């Protein structure tokens, strides 16, 4: 590697410092806003750091309109839908991923088709799904959103896990099969435990994708189900905008994301490029 001079290092530090400020400022602004009083929000020059870090806005946010449950309902619904879709996708997706990786079942075309459903524009599936859900009386239920999110999460889970299985040497499973284990046994008792970290990473990714999802939640829910991603914009559209409270909901809504960004870094490139870049 080229030797780095002191000036060089200073330049790097300046650029990366500026980048950190730029990329973290909006998140920090929302964080600080979540503690501001209304007077602090509506002031010029703007207040950057609020006087008190009392949790008033958070407590109020949990009891937001329309029915006084606001934020709490959002947390509950986002959790139910994200966990539900994650469970289905891993249960159904893991065996399929294994078969694709080890037996190339259905050939390249089948696995390509599976992944291409991941790329569908959600707005294209939204209309027929809406009509189907309306017909089945599933609008405004958790199940509708679990199903809708599975459209994108299942292909993702299959594709990412397929990569993890392919990274595993097949000898152990071959030995198990030769010793008389069934194929499913080789999958469940040999391969699956070995890719357990990969399964966890994949599951967490699928959780976050549903947690972040907005369009389906907007179109398929009304009152009984309200995810966190719905609550924030619906309150911004209101008459009297409660910035502090909305920011508090926003902060709660990004807690899992921030934790995963800091924890999963090693796997992020793989998850975000659908396994194309392994890092």
């Amino acid at each position, binding site marked *: 590697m*080229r030797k780095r001079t002191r000036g060089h290092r200073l330049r*790097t530090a300046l650029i*990366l410092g500026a980048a*950190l400020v730029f*990329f973290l*400022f*909006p*998140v920090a*602004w*929302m964080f600080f806003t979540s503690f501001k009083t209304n007077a602090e929000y509506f002031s*010029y*020059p*703007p207040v*950057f750091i609020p006087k008190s870090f009392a949790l008033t806005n958070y407590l109020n946010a949990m009891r937001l309109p329309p029915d006084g449950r606001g934020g709490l309902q959002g947390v509950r619904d986002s959790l139910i839908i994200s966990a539900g879709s994650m469970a*289905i996708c891993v249960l159904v*997706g893991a065996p*399929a991923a*294994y*078969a694709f990786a*080890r*037996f190339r*079942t259905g050939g390249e075309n089948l696995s390509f088709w*599976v*992944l291409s*459903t991941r*790329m*569908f*524009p959600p*707005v*294209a*599936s*939204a*209309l*027929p799904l809406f*009509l189907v859900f309306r017909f089945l009386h599933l609008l405004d239920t958790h199940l509708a959103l679990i199903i809708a999110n599975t*459209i994108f999460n299942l292909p993702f889970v*299959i594709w990412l896990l397929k990569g993890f299985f*392919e990274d595993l040497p*097949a000898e152990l499973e*071959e030995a198990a099969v030769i010793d008389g284990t*069934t*194929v499913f046994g080789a*999958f469940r008792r040999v391969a699956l435990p070995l890719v357990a970290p990969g399964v966890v990473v994949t599951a967490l990714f699928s959780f976050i994708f549903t947690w*972040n999802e*907005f369009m389906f939640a*907007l179109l398929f829910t009304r009152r009984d189900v309200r995810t966190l991603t719905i609550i924030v*914009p619906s309150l*911004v559209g209101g008459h009297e905008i409660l910035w502090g409270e909305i*920011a508090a909901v926003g902060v709660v*809504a990004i807690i899992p*994301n921030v934790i995963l960004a*800091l924890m999963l*870094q090693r796997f992020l*490139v793989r998850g*975000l*490029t659908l*396994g*194309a*870049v392994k*890092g």
Partner: protein
Amino acid sequence: MNIGVGPGVLPARRAGGTRRMRLAPIVMIFPAVAVLLAITVFPLLYELRLTVVSWELTTGFPPQFVGPANFVRVFTQDPRFWNAVIKTGFLVVVGVGLQTIIGTGLALELYGLGRVRTTVLSFLLIPVMIAPVIAGFQFRMIYNDQFGPLNYLLDTLTHGTVRGAAWLADPRIALWAVMATDVWQWTPFMTLVVLAGLQAIPGELLEAAEVDGATGPQTFWRVTLPLLLPVIVIGMLVRFMDTFKLFDIVYQLTGGGPGSVTETIAYYTYLQGFKFFSLGYTSAMAFVQLAVITVVAQIFLRYQRRMRAGMIA
């Protein structure tokens, strides 16, 4: 990665195997394929049928067969659709372009960093992970022309020479403001991808270039960049597919306005389907988008396969 039969493929496929062994993988795949057929193919077939009817929920008339009229309308009679195409195209070309250039620059800086690299990268990746709609909310506060920090900072740092703006209400600026939000959120993604590519370049190659007397810029343009190109292409394709679907931050920031200045294809389709209730026309637009995405997805998948097979870089 091997293509076809070889190591990594279990004996069932290699040499006959028992019948149960040949059946097992099919059984394992069946639930996934059945679920996907039910939730993607079935609704899309239903939607395909809608593309040839005129069905306006607002009028109360029953669906009427109109043949290819909906598609004719998309391509030749709807300037608002083409406005959305241009707006989306701008976000894809300029937005993804900026993400790639800035992202690559940051990756090169990060690469030179020692142990703190991982920590810095983790923090840079927070925007990538959070929900786009929350990112939109953050920028809505930042862009606020009366109380937002952006206009205040501009005013203070330039001692009043640069006037702030109504970022989301000014038709000359609104699309740039939407793009900036997307660039903010996804530039670190490109950094992450390019950094992974940089780490995969063998150090000897760069040393050899140095020994041969190449200058820094020469090494970058002639050695580093060509080796990075495959991951950059993958990153850009992912970003293309996402930006093509851009909806959440438009909804949260501008609602497509002012006028239809920031109306993306996805947003316009949403309006036609769920505000104007033109079901047939919406379906036709949906299929046009599906066709585009399918082509790009195929390019992405084939590129990825060639990359894994070691045919590129």
